């Protein structure tokens, strides 16, 4: 992309040049017509003057040739002999002519202005016909000289302009530099930033034209910063959530090694197994989240939702007093979507329900064609925490250390990924959580 300064420079220079050209054309046309008028008037006057001086045709016989200076005052710069004068008698004899005037007849017999070509030169001629004096006075002007006059006039105007052109260019270039300085300043300020620097660019002092750009840039900075902060939080949480079971493992192993009593050692070993199970489940969930975040959803295909729920319910281990009932009406429900992602949603909802219950019934059923509902008989979620439980690693105050705090976050993210929506609410008929997966129609 050509630089803004060069682009503006070229445009300004072209525009100035064009205006000058127009001005030159205007001046040359205007001055030409004015010149024609003035010179024609002069021609006419000259002819009248000569006419008033001449005697009759008879008496002009043998009159000496008139010098050019007698008619035309000598002019400088190649404009001498501009005018030529001939005096003809009515019977076609050339009575007199100015020096340098052609011998051929310059004009016809009609009085007034005529244009005519004589000896390869175009003449503008004024003729006075005087039958009383028996003369025709013809005064002519070379058109070529007139053209030269106009050309010289225009050249006289254009030459300084052409000389001024480079100066003007320089001035434009410098002015553009000055005018664009705030832009350059803003650009330099942004260019000089560290890659990590996400502070907003101060919008004051920037020209109003780039204010929207700076606004957009600051918006982008804010977004990137928020995304990075989110990433940092998730990483910090993941580190915490992984390190705690690891610390538990190490501590219990050390206890098992140091303990003298068999009971203490056995308890420590049991705790190690619990800890390993939890850590591996956590790792699995973190991987699922990472995959969801990467946006790698599988291809949509014909999926039997009833069969999917049956498989999940069979795979999730239940405590002895907890059972799950699946509404038979879910059986024939078939949708076109990615079964793996949907199964992430449903499995995490099922696990969440099982985890929060010691005894009771979990129910899966459909409400209308697009709503999958799961209701449990656990304690539900305190009202003020309902909005928070989808956050990653958020664990309710009531449930210390029970889950990883990722299950509902995964269910929510996965639902979004397949265009579905997850609604969480406490049951109205009794204690318990009611989760609704609203599939896209």
């Amino acid at each position, binding site marked *: 992309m050509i630089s803004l300064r060069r682009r503006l420079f070229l445009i300004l220079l072209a525009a100035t040049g064009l205006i000058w050209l127009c001005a030159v054309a205007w001046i040359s046309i205007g001055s030409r017509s004015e010149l024609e008028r003035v010179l024609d008037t002069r021609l006419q006057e000259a002819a009248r003057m000569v006419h008033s001086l001449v005697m009759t045709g008879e008496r002009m016989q043998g009159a000496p040739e008139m010098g050019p200076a007698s008619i035309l005052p000598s002019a400088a710069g190649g404009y001498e002999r501009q005018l030529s004068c001939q005096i003809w008698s009515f019977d076609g004899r050339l009575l007199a002519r100015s020096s340098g005037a052609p011998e051929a007849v310059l004009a016809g017999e009609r009085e007034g202005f005529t244009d005519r070509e004589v000896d390869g030169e175009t003449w503008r001629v004024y003729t006075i016909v005087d039958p009383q004096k028996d003369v025709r006075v013809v005064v002519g002007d070379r058109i070529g000289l007139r053209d030269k006059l106009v050309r010289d006039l225009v050249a006289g105007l254009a030459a300084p302009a052409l000389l001024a052109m480079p100066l003007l260019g320089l001035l434009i270039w410098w002015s553009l530099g000055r005018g664009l300085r705030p832009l350059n300043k803003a650009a330099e300020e942004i260019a000089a930033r560290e890659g990590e620097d996400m502070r907003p660019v101060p919008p004051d002092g920037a020209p109003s034209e780039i204010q929207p750009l700076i606004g957009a840039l600051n918006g982008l900075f804010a977004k990137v910063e928020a995304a990075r902060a989110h990433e940092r939080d998730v990483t910090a949480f993941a580190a915490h959530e992984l390190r705690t079971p690891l610390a538990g*493992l*190490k501590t219990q192993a050390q206890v098992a090694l140091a303990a003298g009593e068999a009971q203490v050692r056995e308890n*420590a070993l049991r705790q190690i197994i619990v800890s390993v199970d939890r850590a591996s489940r956590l790792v699995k969930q973190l991987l699922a989240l990472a995959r969801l975040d990467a946006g790698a959803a599988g291809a949509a295909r014909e999926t039997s939702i009833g069969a999917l729920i049956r498989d999940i319910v069979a795979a999730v281990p239940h405590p002895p007093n907890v059972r799950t009932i699946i509404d038979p009406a879910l059986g024939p429900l078939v949708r076109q979507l990615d079964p793996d992602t949907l199964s992430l949603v449903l499995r995490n909802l099922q696990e969440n329900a099982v985890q929060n219950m010691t005894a009771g019934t979990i129910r899966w059923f459909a409400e209308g064609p697009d709503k999958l509902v799961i209701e449990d008989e656990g304690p539900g979620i305190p009202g003020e925490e309902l909005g928070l439980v989808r956050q990653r690693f958020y664990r309710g105050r009531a*449930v210390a250390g029970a889950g990883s705090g990722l299950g509902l976050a995964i269910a929510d993210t996965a639902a979004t990924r397949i265009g579905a929506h997850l609604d969480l609410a406490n049951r109205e008929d009794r204690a318990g959580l009611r989760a609704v997966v609203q599939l896209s129609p």
Partner: protein
Amino acid sequence: MRILLVEDDPVLADGVRAGLVLAGLTVDAVTTCADAHAALGICRFDAVVLDLMLPDGSGLDVLARLRARQDATPVLVLTALDETPDRIRGLDAGADDYLGKPFDLDELAARLRALARRGGGRASALMHHGPIAIDPATLAVSLEGSPVPVSRREFAVLSMLMERPGVIRSRGELEERLYGWQEEVESNTIEVYVHNLRAKLGRDLIETVRGIGYRLRVPA
């Protein structure tokens, strides 16, 4: 030494508790900020082991409230957030030490002993009284250079008395130091431990102040 452990992860809390008990410490464990506030309000602990990410808030709040009460109980922050800025924030908030997870149980015990030692204003890890020397790190007691075997509880009673020779410790104080809340306090046990210590280290070592408690006899 009596320690308050504030940690919400059940496996880790159980492990730390078991490990510190093996190291001769008495441990009370709580899982939330609220319980930590309550415990610190009621009892005196020699040190607190504090996790930062708790289900009902940050351990730093517990720390801030503790320090706002002008309570100088040594606090060791135990957390997975162990980047340098986190450590700085924790230490500036009033923590005395910082240990990142996962950690070594022996190191945790050693740091707690060091905290308690500094809290008691002692420079040496060993405590001396006349011909008797005790080492809290190894729970070892020696009399004129030769080792004397004592039980964990006996050591606890002896070390509490040796921290302030000549100062009377009531039976309640000694019991509080010896037993966590979860433990059943058997009657007369303090008398039994004192009796055993006298048998092992000499009749005149521990003086009974009738109706009040016990103290180490300071040579006149």
